[in-house]
């Protein structure tokens, strides 16, 4: 605990008349629009926005109790490593998802359930590899992208790929013209692809 003593000297601490060739205002530049984790509020915003995705990925890969712990660790380590986050190189979501993936792999490894398949000879059925974790991550990122689609587009994509209906069946079931179904699906896939790319790149 770095508590030091003090004798507040407002008159000494606040003179801004000293010329260093830079306007004094520049010393208070800052928080707005800058680093997303510039302060605790930024951490809370990131948690509100991306907590459900991080938690969703953890829940698919881990039991409930461990998923809670790992979700917590993801945000704590993100906060601690925030100096290494460069907003110009990727989104907060991508960064958090990357940490989530590594944390899950660490956890599975600690549980003895993780295996490097390149080296594995006699893996047990409960063992999982990096690729499985990546697949879970992708699946939840795609699910999140689906949620964000306009309703008609989302329904068309869901019916086509999750429920595996043909375009004709979708048109019939939703009462939407076949051409519209096709363009909805194409547009939906494109949006999901773009979303997935922001997470991977």
């Amino acid at each position, binding site marked *: *605990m*770095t*508590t*030091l*003593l*003090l*004798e*507040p*000297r407002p008159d*000494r*601490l*606040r*003179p*801004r*008349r*000293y*010329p*260093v*060739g*830079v306007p*004094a205002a*520049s*010393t208070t*530049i*800052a*928080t707005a629009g800058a*680093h997303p984790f*510039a*302060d*605790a*509020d930024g*951490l809370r915003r990131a*948690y*509100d926005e991306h907590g*459900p995705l991080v*938690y*969703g990925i953890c829940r*698919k890969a881990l039991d409930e109790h461990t998923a*809670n712990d790992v979700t*917590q660790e993801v945000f*704590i380590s993100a906060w*601690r490593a*925030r*100096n*290494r986050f460069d907003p110009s190189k990727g989104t907060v979501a991508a960064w958090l998802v990357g940490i989530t993936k590594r944390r899950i792999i660490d956890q599975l490894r600690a549980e003895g359930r993780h295996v490097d398949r390149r080296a594995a000879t006699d893996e047990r059925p409960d063992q999982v590899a990096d690729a499985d974790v990546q*697949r879970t991550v*992708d*699946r939840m990122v*795609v*699910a*999140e992208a689906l*949620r964000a689609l306009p309703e008609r587009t989302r329904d068309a*994509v*869901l019916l086509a*790929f*999750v429920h*595996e209906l043909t375009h004709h069946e979708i048109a019939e079931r939703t009462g939407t013209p076949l051409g519209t179904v096709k363009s909805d699906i194409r547009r939906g896939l494109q949006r*999901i*692809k773009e979303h*997935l790319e922001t997470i991977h790149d």
Partner: protein
Amino acid sequence: MTDESTVESELARVVATLRDVEPADLDLTAPPASVWDGIVEAVRGDAAAAPVVDLSSRRRRAAGALLAAAAVVVLVVAGAAVLLSSGDGDVIARAELAHDAATFDELGREATARVELVGGATIRLADAALPTELGEADLELWLIEADEDGQVVDLVSLGIVGEGTEFTVPAGYDPSVYSVVDISVEPRDGEAAHSGRSILRGPLVEA
């Protein structure tokens, strides 16, 4: 990336992933409240242990409310000083750095240092007796901005002590605002934030 077949194969990947998705996956829910509580607890603990700074630019507002909670208060020895303008090369302010045995790292219990502000933006270590047996650690020089209650508002690193005795105050930092000089022990752990292990500290006072 603009190649048609690449686009198609990327879409194929999306389609393959979509086939993994189950309808229940769309019901993303927020984690239980206990998860956030644990995060806050850990982050508060960090703030108590060390002031934090963004080091991508080595400057950023510290973790405001969290730091305030940590009650990091500045040791002030001297009286008021409005730092006045002067020519380059002139010593326009000095800081006598002192060790606070109650809260500082004991590595600095014998340490003393006097620091001068030379011209507009050079800090010179004028006279110093500093610990040399640091193990896997270095001494680092900082300027701290304190608020009227002596809380740390922000801080900036000027560099590692030992690589020279003159340090340049980075552009944008006004020494009359970042007016408290601090020397800390920084383990070589790749963590660039202030370790919280100060050994000496003191305010710049008009020369």
